[in-house]
């Protein structure tokens, strides 16, 4: 089921990338110092200034007097000294040549008075005016500490004059009296006015107090001791009198100018809430300095000394140098280390929303389908993320939801599911006790990708296991992982049930698997079975009662120059072994036993990277899978050694020299690290031939009779073979098409009639295949092949037939439904 709003919030809250950086969190006004630094470092002073103006009240003033509390919070502080943002603010205030236009919100019905022109009072009046209130500020301005002569050259005074002018333009009225009807220097009178105001009906002769909805008393001009309305509440700044707010919380007037500004801002927010009859306290925990969850990885940060502010202020050059020291704090821990997360240009929080939105679309295009289907489900992000964001869980949930609602694009996983059906079909699946009979003590489960990639290795491992112990049975089939990755829980359950039946029929022994994905999948889905990684058993067989074949194999490995000759190999842990520490250790032990020196690549063990196959990325988004494989290939300079056949092949396809452990245990190639990865058709052939051979040689049983199309002799030009591989067109698809053409006679011929080239089409199930070929002896030479999923219904207005007439089978592909005639249809 799709996630609801609440679940979305929970997912979003998990991702901390949008949390404030330390500087912003420490700033009482939450000024985006990171953005300011970014702009100044790039020489964009006006942009930096615009950031300040957007956030600060009286920016020309505050930028000149800010005490920069962010500096002590700055992460750079641990690497040379915190950024002096206050100095950069001063620089911006002086150097900016343009200020953004200041537009107040539309006038609202609300009158507010501010008693006292200290900095808090001025800031409160500023914010209130910008919120659209009618504001009257009473008393001299500036008052309090701001009135003390702080700048000899009058720069600050000029800035203040400028901002007072801005405030006037925003509609602030200035009254010299300390309060309505009170003399200019009569603070006590102002306090009295306030107190009077708190007693309704007892207002003085001047009726003005009642014309204000709310009043803020500047803490420097009208302290609590004078107004007698008690210390202000630190959250709302409210006093004993409703609508009267005070900056004096009883803990003294803040010395920090930016804290004073924040006090004024808090007061303005309270006045607004009061006018709206909203809660004065709810949801205000984000105001003022706050803790932040943003994590920035300090690894690799080099120290950088501050660029001190010269006498007379920063120049563009010194400011840029200081600003460039900003670390631009981000989390992105997962994004930095995942080709997939980086590819879609954002981070998990954004992706969670995209996924939510994708599921919410009723009419229109679901733009996130590809994104959802491109996650490798490898779990690296969860390991790296400081809060363990589980992108795999999120994407898998989304895929299942898409499947359930019939919104999963059929083309995304169909090829992989067909492959799974083939591996579980009569051509490949096999369940047998040990060839010499008896109770099955251990069941070898090589995994369908190992038998596809290296059937000889799987066969040798089975021989080694049988030599080392009695009663080793064999189970050839798929663990169901592709169905699970595709969100097809129905197919997964079906596949698992067949596997469970085979396993029980073979005395339900421990299962030794040579595939980390099978191990992880079966451990989770078949908890009643003991799942052992085969590596420990093979290692034990080798070091203990070493069998002849294994001893020979290891000996050859040592002498063949593949390994043990000094050049260490980088161990690539498959992502499925991320949480399988025993398997990771066993493989390293096995390699050590073979005398192979190993190194660890960048990101290893529980932090290993996916090869690009995980989660069916290679099916749903082949270019991104190639990118992921290339990224992993670059994680070590050495040749890789791994214990997942798919990882080996993905790395090999990325041009990386890579070995499977079986290449070392059972050497059969001169340079196995350069062994090409078999293509789609060859993988199927390998599985089918392995079953056939083992059945005949070990169990003395005949193999299954070949399907009619398998008798069609086909040769492909190099170009055609390459295209077929890219287009996921199998030799068997071509054979079926050609068989159909031969039997039906339906084909197109070249108009010039000289080339002998023909074109045939056939649609076995849900894809129409076109084959451009010519007869060659008793077979065919294939020049090209292409396919489409769209169905040809025929010529408009009459029952026509496409060149693909005969084969319009069921529209959707169902593995279970076709299992019985797999051989014929696959």
């Amino acid at each position, binding site marked *: 089921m799709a996630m609801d709003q609440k679940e979305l919030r929970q997912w979003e809250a998990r991702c901390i990338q949008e949390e404030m950086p330390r500087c912003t969190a420490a700033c009482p006004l939450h000024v985006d110092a990171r953005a300011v630094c970014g702009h100044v470092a790039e020489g964009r002073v006006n942009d930096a200034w615009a950031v300040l103006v957007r956030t600060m009240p009286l920016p020309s003033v505050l930028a000149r007097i800010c005490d920069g509390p962010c500096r002590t919070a700055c992460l750079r502080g641990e690497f040379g000294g915190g950024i002096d943002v206050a100095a950069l603010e001063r620089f911006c205030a002086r150097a900016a040549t343009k200020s953004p236009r200041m537009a107040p919100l539309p006038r609202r019905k609300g009158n507010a008075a501010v008693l006292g022109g200290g900095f808090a009072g001025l800031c409160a009046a500023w914010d209130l005016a910008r919120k659209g209130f009618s504001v009257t500020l009473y008393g001299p301005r500036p008052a309090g500490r701001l009135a003390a002569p702080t700048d000899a050259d009058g720069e600050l005074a000029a800035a203040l004059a400028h901002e007072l002018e801005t405030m006037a333009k925003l509609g602030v009225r200035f009254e010299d009296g300390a309060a309505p009807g009170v003399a200019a220097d009569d603070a006590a009178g102002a306090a009295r006015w306030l107190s009077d105001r708190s007693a309704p009906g007892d207002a003085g002769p001047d009726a003005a107090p009642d014309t204000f909805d709310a009043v803020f008393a500047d803490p420097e001009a009208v302290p609590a001791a004078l107004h007698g309305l008690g210390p202000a509440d630190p959250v709302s700044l409210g006093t004993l009198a409703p609508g009267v707010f005070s900056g004096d919380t009883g803990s003294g007037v803040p010395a920090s100018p930016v804290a004073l500004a924040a006090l004024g801002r808090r007061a303005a927010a309270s006045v607004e809430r009061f006018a709206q009859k909203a809660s004065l306290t709810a949801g205000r925990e984000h105001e003022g300095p706050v803790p932040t969850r943003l994590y920035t990885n300090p690894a690799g940060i080099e120290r950088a000394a501050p660029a001190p502010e010269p006498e007379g202020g920063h120049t563009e050059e010194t400011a840029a140098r200081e600003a460039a020291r900003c670390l631009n704090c981000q989390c992105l821990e997962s994004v930095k280390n995942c080709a997939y997360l980086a590819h879609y240009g954002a981070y998990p929080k954004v992706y969670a929303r995209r996924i939510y939105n994708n599921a919410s679309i009723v009419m229109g295009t679901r733009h996130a389908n590809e994104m959802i289907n491109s996650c490798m489900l490898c779990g690296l992000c969860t390991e790296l993320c400081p809060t363990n964001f589980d992108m795999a869980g999120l994407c898998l949930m989304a895929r299942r939801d898409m499947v359930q609602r019939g919104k999963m694009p059929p083309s995304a996983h169909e090829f992989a599911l067909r492959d799974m059906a083939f591996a579980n079909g009569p051509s490949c699946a096999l369940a047998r006790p040990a060839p010499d009979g008896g109770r099955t003590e251990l069941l070898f489960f090589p995994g369908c990708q190992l038998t596809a990639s290296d059937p000889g290795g799987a066969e040798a491992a089975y021989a080694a296991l049988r030599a080392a112990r009695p009663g080793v049975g064999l189970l050839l089939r798929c663990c169901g992982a592709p169905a699970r990755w595709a969100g097809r829980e129905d197919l997964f359950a079906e596949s698992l049930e067949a596997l469970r039946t085979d396993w029980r029929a073979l005395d339900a022994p421990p299962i030794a698997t040579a595939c980390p994905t099978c191990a992880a999948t079966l451990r989770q889905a078949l908890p009643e079975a003991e799942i052992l990684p085969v590596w420990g058993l093979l290692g034990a067989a080798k070091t203990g009662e070493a069998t002849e074949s294994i001893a020979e194999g290891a000996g050859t490995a040592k002498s063949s120059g593949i390994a043990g000759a000094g050049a260490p190999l980088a161990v690539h842990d498959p992502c499925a072994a991320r949480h399988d520490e025993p398997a990771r250790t066993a493989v390293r032990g096995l390699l050590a036993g073979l005398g192979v020196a190993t190194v660890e690549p960048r990101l290893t063990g529980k932090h290993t990277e996916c090869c690009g196959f995980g989660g069916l990325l290679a099916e749903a988004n082949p270019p991104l899978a190639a990118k992921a494989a290339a990224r992993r290939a670059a994680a070590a300079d050495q040749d890789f050694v791994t214990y997942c056949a798919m990882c080996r092949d993905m790395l090999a396809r990325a041009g990386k020299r890579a070995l499977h452990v079986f290449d070392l245990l059972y050497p059969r190639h001169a340079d196995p690290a350069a062994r090409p990865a078999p293509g789609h058709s060859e993988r199927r052939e390998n599985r089918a031939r392995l079953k056939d051979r083992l059945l005949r040689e070990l169990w003395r049983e005949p193999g299954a009779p070949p399907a009619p199309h398998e008798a069609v002799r086909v040769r492909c030009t190099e170009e055609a073979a390459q295209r077929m591989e890219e287009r996921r067109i199998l030799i068997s698809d071509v054979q079926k098409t050609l068989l159909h053409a031969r039997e039906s006679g339906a084909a197109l011929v070249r*108009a010039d009639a000289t080339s002998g080239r023909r074109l045939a089409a056939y649609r076995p199930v849900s894809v129409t295949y076109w084959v451009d070929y010519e007869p060659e002896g008793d077979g065919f030479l294939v020049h090209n092949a292409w*396919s489409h999923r769209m*169905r040809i219904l025929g010529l408009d207005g009459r029952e026509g037939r496409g060149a693909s007439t005969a084969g319009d089978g069921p529209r959707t592909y169902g593995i279970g439904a076709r299992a019985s005639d797999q051989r014929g249809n696959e």
Partner: protein
Amino acid sequence: MSTIRVPEADAAGWRCACCDCDLVLAPVELEYMGSHFSVELPACPQCGAVLVPEPLALGKMAEVEKLLEDK
């Protein structure tokens, strides 16, 4: 249903082997994910055999298939 014309649909170069006649452009009904289109494609005027040229299958047709799958 108005008929869509696509530049990739080129009738030249192929003949129907069964009927021994040139293909001509004709409106052909196509279907995917429940959507129906009429597209002008090379077809045998006698038996109705249709040609989907490679550039069309891998180009516009693939695009439309993806679009419909994401609907």
